[in-house]
C-alpha cells in the first residue's frame, strides 16, 4: 500500500490534502482519464486509491512522483513543486516564498 509519513501536523493538514486532491482531480480530468486509467498508468494496484487521494486522504508516495507527473502530462519538477505546496507547505514557503 502506498503511504508516506506525515511531515506536518496541524489543523490545516486535512484542508491541504483536500486541496491537493482537487488539484489532482482537475489534472486527471484535463487529461480525459478515468481514475482506473490513471491508476493503470501510475502502477496502482487498486484504482480506488486514486479516488481516495482525490478526496484528500493520503498522498502520492515520493517514489511515484515522476510517474504521476508523466501520466498527468506535467513537468515533474513543476508537479512536485505544486505537490510540495500541499504536502509540505513549510518547506515550500522556505524555498519559494
Amino acid at each position, binding site marked *: *500500500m502506498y503511504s508516506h509519513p506525515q511531515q506536518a*501536523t496541524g489543523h490545516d*493538514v486535512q484542508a491541504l490534502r*483536500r486541496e491537493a*486532491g482537487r488539484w489532482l482531480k482537475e489534472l486527471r480530468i484535463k487529461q480525459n482519464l478515468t481514475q482506473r486509467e490513471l491508476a493503470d498508468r501510475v502502477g496502482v*494496484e487498486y484504482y*480506488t486509491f486514486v*479516488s481516495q487521494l482525490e*478526496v484528500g*486522504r493520503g498522498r502520492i508516495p515520493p517514489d511515484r512522483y515522476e510517474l504521476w507527473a508523466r501520466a498527468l502530462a506535467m513537468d515533474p519538477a513543476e508537479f512536485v513543486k505544486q505537490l510540495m505546496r500541499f504536502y509540505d507547505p513549510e518547506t515550500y514557503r522556505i524555498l519559494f516564498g
Partner: protein
Amino acid sequence: MILVVSASVFAFPQRASGPQPWTNDELAELYRVVEILGRAGLLVETEMGLSDEGDPWFVFCRRDSGDVIAHFARIGGNFVAASIAVDATYRGANFRQIVERMVESQPLILPPPAGGSRLLLHPSVVLVAFVATALAHSDKMLAVDWLRSVDAQWDHRPGQDTHAASDKPGWFDSLQGWVRSLTQDDKALHDGPSKEAQALSLASLIAIAVTALQPIMDKMSVISQAFSDEVSGQSRHSVVAAGGHAVQASQEMPVIDSASLSSGDQVVVQPPTSDRAQAPHKLVSSDMSGDAQHPDAVTDILHVAATPVAHGLASDDGRLVAAQPAVEQPNDSGNAFMLLQQKAVAVAAATVDPASTPVAHGEASAAMPVITIDDVSAQALKLLTIHNSSDSSSGAAPDATGPAQHQQVVDTAPAPVVVQNDPAPVTVVAANPAPAGDAEINVGQNAPVVVIDAIANFVSSGSHSVTQPINPSASLVRDLAPFFTAGRTSIEVIVFDSSSPTADVIDFAPGVVLVSDNVLSSTHLSNSNGNLILDLQGGGNITFVGVATIGLHSAIS
C-alpha cells in the same frame, strides 16, 4: 467459557450487477473493526467514498496525523484490502475470503486461551489485526506497549494451566522478535517493513489482538449467545424484552442505507430527539443462568457496539455526504445477530452529529449512573494508582491497562470520522453556593471503594459544579463527542488540576469524563463546596476542582 461465533456475519447476499455502495452488512463489519480497536484504546479515523465508477472504498487512518493505514475497497464485485504494514494486496469475493487469504499467507501464532476456554478465532479479529498491524507499524511505541500488556496479561491469568505456561516462550519470543524488528530498524518504518517483520507482523498482531481484546470478545460472546437463544426459541421472554431495546433505538435513530446514496447526496444525520434515560450498564457474566439477565446483556452489548461513529461518505467530487434515514430491513430471525449489528451501527452513526451543539445545563442529570469501582476505566484506575481488586475476571495486573496507556482517550472512543463544523462553545452556568471546604483523600491509605465513593459523591452531589463559565475549545468538544454514546445526551465532566496525568481527556466511567483544566480557556476554576484532593500513592496529587454537566443539544431540534 465458549466463544460463540455467528457464521452468518459474513454471509453477504449476491450483489446486483454494476457497482454498488457498501451494504449495511459490510459497513457493520468494517465499523466492528473500529469498535474493537476503540475498546482497546486504539483510536482510528475512517472515511469512505465512491470512485468515479461507483466502486466503494473505506480507509482507516491514524487519528493524530490522518495518515491512511489501511484501505478496503470493492472493485468490480471483488473485495480488496491493503495496508502499510503488509506488502501485499488481498483480494476475495467477500471479507471472509480476504480473511482466509490473510490467514493463509501468514503463519498463525496464537496463544492458548485463558481459563481453559475454547477459543474460536472470529474473522473480525483477523480484520482487526490487519488494521492494528498497520497502526503498530506506524507507531513503534504502540507495539512496545502491546508487548508489555500481553506479557502482563499472560503472567497474571487466573487458572493458568501448565500447558499455557509452557507455550508462552515460543509464542512470546515471536512477539518480541516482531517488536524488535520494528524498534531496531527505523528504516523499515519509512521504507516499508522488512520481510522478516512482515512474516511475523500479521501473525503476531492476531495473537496480540486475540489476547489484548479477549475481554471484548468475551462480551461479544454474550450477545451471540443471547441471540442464539432467541433463534433456538430459548429465553423467549427475555430476548423479546431485549429486542424492544433494539427496536426503540432503531425507531429513534436513522438506519444507514448506503445503497440509497449516490454521488452528491447531501444528508445530515440527526441526533436522537428523545432524552432517554441512560441506564447504568454493567458487565454480565458470560455463564448466564437466568433469563432476567439477558436484557442487561443485550443492553450492554448495544452499549459496546454503539460506538459514536459520525462518518462522512466522500463522494467522487470530494463533497461529504452522510447516511440518510431509511426503511428498516426486515427482521430475519436466522440472522438476528447481524440485525443487531446493523442496528448498532445505525445507532452509532446517528449518535454524534457534527452540527450538534453541546450545551451545559445546571441541573443534575437524572440519568447519572451510580459509579462503582467496576465502572471505572482501566486508564482512570491507573491514573489514580488504584488496583481494582474486585475484578477477578481479568486477572490482569493493576497497571496492565494495555494499549490504553498509549492513548489520550480510551474505552468507547473510536474517533468520529469527519467533523466538519466546530461546535459552538460550551457555557457552564454557576451552581448554587454551598458551604466550602476541601476534602483530601490519601489514595494509598484508603480502600479503593472509599476513593471511588468519594469521587462518585463529588460528581453526583450537585454542589460541586464549577462556578465560573468555561469555554472549551472546539478540539475539546470533539474529544468529548465520542462519550455521547447511544442514548446518552449528557455527560458529567470532572475538571481536574494536576501535573501528573499525561492525558487531558480521560474516560472515568460511563457518562463521566475527566478533563484537565489545561484545555479549558477559563482559569482558576472552583466550586462552591470545595475541591476534592487525591494524594496519589506514587507522590503528587490530583485536585478535582469542579463538575460540569454537558449535554448534547442539537441546534436543529
